[in-house]
């Protein structure tokens, strides 16, 4: 079969091309290793840099107050922050900027205000007395019918004294100031963690206990690591780039150099040519998936196993993106333009299809756009097949990918010119 001959030839040609191998296989692997290294925790978990300036000093010796130190210790115990002390005499912003240097990361400064300890003690006392007062008051109204007048008067006197004492406590609150760079993507997470620590500190001070128990369990039957979740996304994204950038550039190059014209003079048909190229892409993509998973097993101990659905999806995805690549090469004359246009299509699609970032994080209008992108369905389908083992999620996405595969391969074959004008 002539398509098989074409398949063998273009595959061999690709496998002997260093740049082809790099962009199709090695680059995705590098990306997986980078993502894996960041999110797997191997080699130590990374921490957020946090500059802390403690302005709450004891009057006697100028040392930090006990409660402010306890709060910093509580922040440390979360194992989330790499805390860097800023002397109270420094301008915190200037100090942090200098410490980070010209290539430094995001600037995050927590300032513990002067009087933090006193305000915390006063505030805590006020709250505790207030709670005690309310409790006793409630009991008073509950037991009043059973008390004589002397008991009532004594109870009332006690309550009045509590109220009077509470009024003497200054109505102040301890204050923490967090300064962040507006462009810092992690700012929201950091603020949320500091707020949680402050709340826990509050509870501890007033002697409150958590009454809601928070349990966490996985939606998957197998216990997957973070890297497992990245594998379908990265695989899908690079199957897309192999078709839209790789095949488009190769097919344009074959056209420009007259290789397609040379083949068209032989009895080879256009359909044989297209099938041969799609088969080559399918093999490349199956190899890419196998290598990614094998590497994931060895380095990151991943557990995803592609099943029949995953393989079917990869084949359909290969057809779909090969169709787009073929269609592009039909319109474009030179390789540089093919590569540029391929990148212009592939890269936004990569980031808007939920392969690297969850769709829920995107604004509504971007989520709407993502629904029009073929990679969204391919990537989601692979996630359902490889991770969630959810056939219903696979069927719907697979159906959409199959329809798009047929549509794009028809478009690709219509646009591919087998005859000159």
């Amino acid at each position, binding site marked *: 079969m*002539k398509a098989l001959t074409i398949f063998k030839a273009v595959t061999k040609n690709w496998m002997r091309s260093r740049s082809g191998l790099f962009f199709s296989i090695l680059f995705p692997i590098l990306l997986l290793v980078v993502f894996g290294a960041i999110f797997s925790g191997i080699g130590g978990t990374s921490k957020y840099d946090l500059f802390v300036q403690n302005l709450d000093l004891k009057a006697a010796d100028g040392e930090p107050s006990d409660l402010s130190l306890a709060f910093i210790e509580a922040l440390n115990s979360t194992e989330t922050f790499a805390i860097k002390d800023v002397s109270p005499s420094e301008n915190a912003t200037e100090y942090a900027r200098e410490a980070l240097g010209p290539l430094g990361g995001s600037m995050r400064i927590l300032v513990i205000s002067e009087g933090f300890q006193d305000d915390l003690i006063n505030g805590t006392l006020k709250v505790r007395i207030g709670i005690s007062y309310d409790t006793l008051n409630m009991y008073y109204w509950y037991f009043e019918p059973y008390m004589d007048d002397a008991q009532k008067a004594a109870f009332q006197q006690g309550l009045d004294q509590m109220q009077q004492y509470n009024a003497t406590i200054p109505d102040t609150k301890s204050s923490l100031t967090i300064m962040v760079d507006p462009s810092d993507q992690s700012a929201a997470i950091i603020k949320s963690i500091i707020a949680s620590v402050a709340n826990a500190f509050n509870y501890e001070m007033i002697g409150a206990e958590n009454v809601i128990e928070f349990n966490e369990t996985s939606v998957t039957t197998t216990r997957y690591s973070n890297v497992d979740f990245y594998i379908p996304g990265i695989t899908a994204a690079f199957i897309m780039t192999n078709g839209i950038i790789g095949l488009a550039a190769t097919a344009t190059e074959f056209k420009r150099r007259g290789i397609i014209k040379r*083949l068209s003079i032989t*009895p080879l048909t256009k359909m044989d040519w297209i099938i041969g190229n799609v088969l080559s892409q399918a093999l490349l993509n199956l190899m890419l998936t196998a290598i990614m998973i094998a590497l994931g097993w060895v380095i990151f101990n991943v557990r995803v196993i592609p099943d029949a659905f995953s393989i079917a999806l990869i084949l359909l995805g290969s057809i779909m993106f090969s169709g787009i690549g073929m269609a592009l090469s039909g319109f474009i004359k030179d390789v540089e333009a093919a590569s540029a246009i391929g990148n212009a299509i592939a890269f936004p699609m990569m980031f808007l299809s939920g392969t690297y970032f969850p769709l829920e994080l995107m604004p509504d209008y971007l989520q709407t756009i993502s629904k029009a992108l073929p990679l969204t369905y391919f990537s989601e389908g692979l996630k359902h097949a490889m991770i969630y083992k959810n056939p219903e999620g696979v069927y719907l996405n697979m159906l959409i990918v199959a329809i798009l595969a047929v549509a794009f391969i028809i478009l690709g074959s219509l646009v591919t010119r087998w005859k*000159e004008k």
Partner: protein
Amino acid sequence: MNKAVVEVDSLVKQYGQLKAVDGISFEVYEGEVFAFLGPNGAGKTTTVEILECIRPLTSGTARIFGYEVTRNEDVKEIKRRIGALPQEFSALDKLTVKENIELIGDMYEKHLDVMEIIKLLDLEDKTNEKFENLSGGLKQRVGVAAALVSDPQLVFLDEPTTGLDPKSRREVWVVIENLKKLGKTVFLTTHYMEEAQVLADRVAIINKGKIAVIGSPQELISQHGGLKVLVIRKGDKKLADSLQKRYGQTTMNGNGDILVKIDDVDELWQMMTTLTEMRVGKDIEIQTPTIEDVFLKIVGGRITEEGEFKQ
């Protein structure tokens, strides 16, 4: 005369108002080397690609081995029987010479032994060399090998020596001469006058989509090439004036050479006797007209090395 394997009648290829091929008619006979000679844009490649069934025609008819190039059923038959070296031939860079020839061979139901073809084209040393590492001349030879691997009866060679250095060009000429010896019919397009004259049994001069003249190089030269010219290198004005008085048709070129047109052999002998008597001991040579002179006379211009037409 052998039977015609290519029959073209009133062939027209039009792009909007432009007629790239303007009603040409010709035949190519079995076993001959037929050359289409003309400048870039004359319509050579367009005609060849119509005959190779990869470009539709606007009007007229074209038959290869009696099969119509416009009928789908016939196209399959034509493609089985022809071989082609397209203009600026290229192949898969990372495949070897052998793999590239095999690739083209595998497109046919049967093909010749690839190693035989490699031997025929003297490419044995390069059998396992990647295509990207070959010189221009070797790449063209691989192209010719690919054109022959299906053992075609008719081979189209579209500008097979364009862009090659003189040595590589001669190598390709040898290959084409061998094709003729093998009994193949060769349809050659070129803008090199010498190539057409040396290789072709018949030449069609084509310009602006029209065939100006067809015939064997000898026929064309004798009919349209003009007179032979006696050239006396670095002659002087006095000698030139003397020859002009006796024989007429004498001029001097920019290099100081005296050029005297000769009507026949008798006149040549007379002239030689005169020069001996005058003790002219200069370099003397006789220039015979070439296809270039034919082209100049018929089309009214020359073709540059790059293939451009120059008046």
